[in-house]
């Protein structure tokens, strides 16, 4: 079992702070079962329009103290029991990242705890590995700000394919907003665009652009074409159905190529969009056809959250990845393939 090594290490408890976009999340993780001791968050939802970075960052600043207290309370511990402070330094929205980084630097300096830098995308992957027990999956990471196919090779998580323009979640949110379906974006746990697609009786498939270039996808043309179809009088439910079918097929086709190319035998679906039941079903079909096992990260650990930052913080801290508060600078475009992951060995297994 891949957890063996970190269980042999001394016991460490890490508090993790997530503030890359609309969520202020604080989690607490430990290298002992049950691993995740707390996972508290508050999510900013704009009344109208998309996420305004300034408004979101103000929301995060206002709510950070109460979320930190709630996390400590949930874990039943105090700051004295914490060994290190982990923080997501990117990728994400600058103003939001800065608030989380400021809070983390302050906690680190005041309580004299080491500061652990965490890459948000890698945190998504690592908590998925923890929950699934997977050792070396192909990762489909789909959210409002990210759309990537990622797999481990030679010391790093490599981006096998990605979107050339907007993210899958962004495509869905903007369409929902422009079509008058949102806010709210989620109803009964499902995205309104999916619910709209399920209402389509005829399931008419419109000729919308399907753009896969090698290992990458492009969604901006699809968004424009879907909105144009709506303006030209196509039925809303049919446009939703076509948008959902085409956008999911595009990313799964690239994922399937990645699976064939990397010969991985496990598929991990994560990020905010993984909550979609339609995507869950389709990904399962794709993995089955390739003889791969499949795991969809549960909602509260798939959307942005602090527990994943804390857990990735545990892995990094045990490998002595720490920095001075003065060095902890955010990086809005911090790619996962720029980060060494020493906690995995050559085979992609945690050693």
């Amino acid at each position, binding site marked *: 079992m891949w957890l063996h090594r970190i269980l042999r290490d001394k016991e460490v408890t890490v508090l993790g702070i997530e503030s890359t976009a609309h969520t202020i999340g604080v989690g607490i993780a430990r290298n002992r079962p049950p691993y995740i001791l707390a996972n508290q968050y508050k999510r900013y939802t704009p009344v109208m329009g998309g996420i305004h970075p300034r408004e979101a960052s103000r929301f995060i600043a206002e709510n950070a103290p109460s979320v930190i207290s709630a996390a400590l309370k949930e874990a039943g511990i105090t700051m004295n029991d914490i060994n290190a402070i982990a923080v997501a330094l990117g990728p994400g929205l600058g103003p939001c990242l800065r608030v989380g980084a400021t809070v983390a630097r302050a906690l680190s300096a005041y309580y004299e705890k080491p500061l652990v830098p965490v890459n948000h995308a890698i945190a998504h992957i690592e908590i998925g590995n923890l929950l699934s027990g997977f050792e070396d999956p192909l990762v489909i990471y789909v959210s409002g700000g990210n759309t990537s196919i990622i797999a481990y090779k030679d010391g790093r998580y490599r981006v096998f394919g990605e979107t050339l323009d907007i993210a899958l979640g962004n495509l869905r949110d903007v369409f929902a907003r422009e079509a008058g379906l949102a806010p709210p974006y989620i109803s009964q746990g499902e995205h309104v665009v999916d619910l709209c697609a399920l209402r389509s009786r005829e399931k008419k498939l419109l000729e919308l652009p399907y753009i896969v270039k*090698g290992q990458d996808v492009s969604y901006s043309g699809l968004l424009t074409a879907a909105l144009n179809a709506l303006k030209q009088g196509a039925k809303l439910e049919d446009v939703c159905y076509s948008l959902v*079918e085409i956008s999911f*097929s595009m990313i799964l*086709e690239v994922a399937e190529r990645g699976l064939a190319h990397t010969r991985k035998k496990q598929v991990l679906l994560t990020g905010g969009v993984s909550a979609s039941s339609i995507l869950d079903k389709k*990904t399962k*079909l*794709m993995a*089955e*056809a390739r003889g791969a096992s499949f795991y969809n990260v549960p909602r509260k650990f798939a959307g942005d959250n602090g527990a994943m930052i804390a857990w990735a913080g545990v892995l990094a801290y045990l490998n002595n990845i720490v920095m001075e508060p003065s060095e902890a600078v955010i990086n809005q475009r911090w*790619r996962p393939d720029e980060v060494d992951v020493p906690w995995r060995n050559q085979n992609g297994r945690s050693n």
Partner: protein
Amino acid sequence: MEKPKWPFELEPLSWGAESNLYLTDYLGIKAVLKHRFPKKYMDPRLTRRLIKTRTIREASLLIEARMAGVHVPLPLYIDSENGILVVKYIEGRLLRDVIDEEPDNVGVLACTMGEIVKRLHNTDIIHGDLTTSNFIRSKYQGRIYLLDFGLAFKSRRPEDKATDIRVLERAVVSTHPMLRESIMEKFIECYTDGLRDLDNIMARYRKLSLMGRYVAERRKSLGA
């Protein structure tokens, strides 16, 4: 795995993400059958539509490339409804292996690849998957053929042509890491000799190296 509807004998060659390849005999000609199969995770109409357009596109681009003077396995039979494309079998060795076996020949081979891609780009065909495994040296005349137009498309945009070269470079780096410079230098020299829209393509190519997946390099070069 779904078998294609085909009256002749089939011998499996390889299973890909998008298609399966079989060795077959078509009216006495040794041939390769490429079968694009429907995806279970897609709407049946969508997967059929993609299979049909991609099969037709691949066949027509193969013919267009041949007319532009590039040696390719010529299409012998097409059934786009069932995703079947049969092309002539080229007997020979993949350049991936030839390069490793004949290091003295690297310059000549890289130059030939450059000339082939130049001809392709001069007729606005983008291959989409250039690797040294997609070039083959035929056993009989020693000619170099370009294979697999499965991801090929038409475009006159300099960035698409530049991306094609960048994809090849990426493949060379991972397949022949020690020969990267000698291959790419000679390739570029022969590729650019007589290339239409040379300046725009090469400007894009240099920019691409500092973009997207290579953000860290770009940031460093900007002193960030």
